[in-house]
């Protein structure tokens, strides 16, 4: 099969590559770009482990062909901390509030929450629960994830107000 050219911005860096057109975005990111933060947990777009941010929207990268992401601006978990290594409020809050156990859902979960808090900077508990319902976690029972997102939302809004 002939390959197609791919141009995209991933975590702020422009990349050029070629790929078999049927390659899924998740495999392209994980295997060609060595970004193994987003994971694969299912084959039916249910688990959200593969969640990345694409053009300002959360997408399940297992359900996007790499060609569909051509020209896109992509953010993965690897691009969520600041360039100087300072963790994002969400990353800090997940640790402080024990929002993860095995860590397999965590990259997708944080990436989803990262977008959720931009869509809705001060969500209620119910809005958080709906907002992350496309991301499954088998370990935590969500309670501490929800708490971590609430805390991060507060911190981000305090920071925003200060700026």
């Amino acid at each position, binding site marked *: 099969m002939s390959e197609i050219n791919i141009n995209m911005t991933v975590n702020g860096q422009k990349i050029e590559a070629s790929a*078999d057109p*049927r*390659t899924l975005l998740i*495999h392209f990111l*994980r*295997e060609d770009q*060595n*970004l*193994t*933060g*987003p*994971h*694969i*947990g*299912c*084959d*039916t777009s*249910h*688990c959200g*482990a593969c969640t990345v941010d694409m053009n300002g929207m959360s997408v399940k990268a297992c359900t996007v062909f790499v060609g569909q992401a051509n020209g896109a601006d992509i953010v*993965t*978990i*690897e691009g*969520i*901390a600041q360039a100087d290594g300072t*963790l994002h409020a969400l*990353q800090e809050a*997940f*640790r*402080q509030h*024990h929002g*993860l*156990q*095995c*860590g*397999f*859902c*965590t*990259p997708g979960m*944080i990436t989803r929450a990262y977008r959720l808090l931009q869509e809705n900077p001060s969500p209620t508990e119910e809005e*958080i*629960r*709906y907002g*992350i*319902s*496309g*991301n*499954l*976690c*088998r*370990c*935590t*029972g*969500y*309670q*501490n*994830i*929800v708490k971590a997102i609430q805390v991060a939302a507060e911190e981000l809004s305090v920071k925003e107000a200060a700026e």
Partner: protein
Amino acid sequence: MNDQTPISREERIEKLQGLGSSRKRVEDARFTQGAGNYVDDIKLPGMLFGDFVRSPYGHARIKSIKTEAALAVPGVLAVITAEDLKPLNLHYMPTLAGDVQAVLADEKVLFQGQEVAFVVATDRYAAADGVELVEVDYEGLPVINDAFKAMDDNAPLLREDIKDKMEGAHGPRKHHNHIFSWEEGDKKGTEKALADADVVVEELITYQRVHPCPLETCGCVASMDKINGKLTLWGTFQAPHAVRTVASLITNIAEHNIRVISPDIGGGFGNKVGVYPGYICAAVASIVTGKPVKWVEDRIENLSATAFARDYHMTGKIAATKDGKITGLSAHVLADHGAFDACADPTKFPAGFFSIVTGSYDIPVAYCGVDGVYTNKAPGGVAYRCSFRVTEAAYLIERMIDILARKLDMDPAEIRLKNFIKKEQFPYNSALGWEYDSGDYHTAMDKALASVDYNALRAEQEENRAAFDRGETRNLMGIGVAFFTEIVGAGPVKNCDILGLGMFDSCEIRIHPTGSAIARLGTISQGQGHATTFAQIVASEIGIPAEDITLEEGDTDTAPYGLGTYGSRSTPVAGAATAMAGRKIRAKAQMIAAYLLEVHEGDLEWDVDRFQVKGNPEAHKTMKEIAFASYNQAIPGLEPGLEAVSYYDPPNMTYPFGAYIGVVDIDVDTGVVDVRSFYALDDCGTRINPMIIEGQVHGGLTESLAIVMGQDISYDETGNIKGATLMDYFLPTAVETPNWETDFTTTPSPHHPIGAKGVGESPNVGGVPALSNAVHDAFAHKGLTHTQMPHDHWRIWKTAQKLGLTD
């Protein structure tokens, strides 16, 4: 040189972050930044991918396998079938239960999804293309999907490979589809108790087939280094040392030439205890090609082929006096093990610790018997977030007690309080042969009832029922009470082994000259936070802050031998080994301190992080100072260095317990069950890290919710697996999951060095009966005795309809 830092004793304790500290997890930095290293993240030069051709049939004869078209796909290098494995004697592998399992189907397939051929290719897409093009010609055979029909006279023969082997791993087999019979207790005495009783309740209670479904599926990378003759296996292994031993036994590669590494594991819950055909095929493919080979199953493969759990059909009978005192218990189980017996139970316990079925009650006489049968379903039978078959046992007794309460018109809490083993009876010998180490059930139950204001809940329920009857509401309120006793920490080598390997565990600790340390264990974390909690145990034992202790596990080349992490055994067994290794270090440290302080050893006492002269705490040596001295001074009569290893063979199991109360509101017209509140009191003995314990309880309760409200791996009459994707298999999202309220009492284990009992699996054991009892309780006044799980919307609605409650 004394450490002069003037800090108080409290500050020194605080600094250690030892036992009881809600220390933040050291694992989280990498996980929150996408820097975990799970098996599918491993990428080696020249790595190939393997993928399975799987059976579409539940039971069929394989007439031919044609591989030419697959081999013509660019990138496909090999297609391996049973015929290729036979000369190597690798077409069958031993299971942990003493049976054998086909690595690749040998002449016939026995369940849908069974491994038939292994396609090896340069990348996963080419492998998938190859799989599509392997042509297998099947001839369908009659299917057994109902365990109750497996031993009919005319039942089809499933296992042709062992048809003449009527002596099974656990005694004689009485039918060609029978695996084992196992019994415990006093059968005659129990029959008499039942015959003499004022009341007897009897019920068939099925615990449906479910699947642990960790978010990461199973997989491995096998890499054979032909020059050095070394095979390295990275994989999702809950028991890396056992995998190495099994791999050595079946491949004939010497054990020192096999290195098994468990990298980060994305949840296990029992799914990753077993040895799967994918591991063997990847290893064979690597040996044949000389290249590393990766195999990672997808979700459908995971749900349909690797390690289910439960599938127990349990008939319980309770004998009792008319005022509710239990006088006897009998339980018989028909256990559906699928096509191969691949349970991961200790050898002498083919039904695990099911005989914990007398639960938390002082029952004078009991009997239990289990028959295992083959069916055309996937093999497995693992402990899904529970100790071996304990959750099945807890479900049976806790449902039966409720049924008895209903029959006697007693309150479920009251009947439990009446029958509990009393505090002064511990250590308690159960009628089925266990010695419960410690417990205080009445205190725990009283605390739980008070915390939820049980009487007020019952009063509210009365009002709700009246309002429902008046037509003012369509919701029924249910209150579910469960009190469980677990048995974990397998286990004493005298009666617990897997494949002949005693179920001890181990820890090695080395103190570095500057007073930091590394500890290595035979276990492996799958989210339990071992790197955090085991360092806390070490910290408390040797007085070095947890943050100065590296914890390593999961690499058989460096870690001491251990049986791995499942059945809540890490804390009871490896945690004990850790404490004991720490104590060995402390014993040597005491001799060093005595030398340095020029006093007799007996004149020293341990205090937090130092040895001090009794009555003169100013004269002391901290562990840090002692560590340095051990490396730079010649101390008469002592070897240099400061390290220790401990292999811990537990004298007994540990018996965590808990009281759980859940409240549900059920909409009878839609069958939707809303969990309004759930209170979980756990007693897991000494609490190492309360934050992590709470997290484990939240997670386990959520899994119990999943099991009770929807999980079901079922098969149709032709052997098709229903629900092997996340479209159908229920994993609760954040929306369905309620907030859980946790609480605790602390009854240390008397025989464990730090008194800890293990907790990871308690919430599943107690959560399932509590939630199921709540659903039953909602309908109890309308005449419902028992209905099988899962209590999904459709089934609940059917129940309401049968009771005449729907319009």
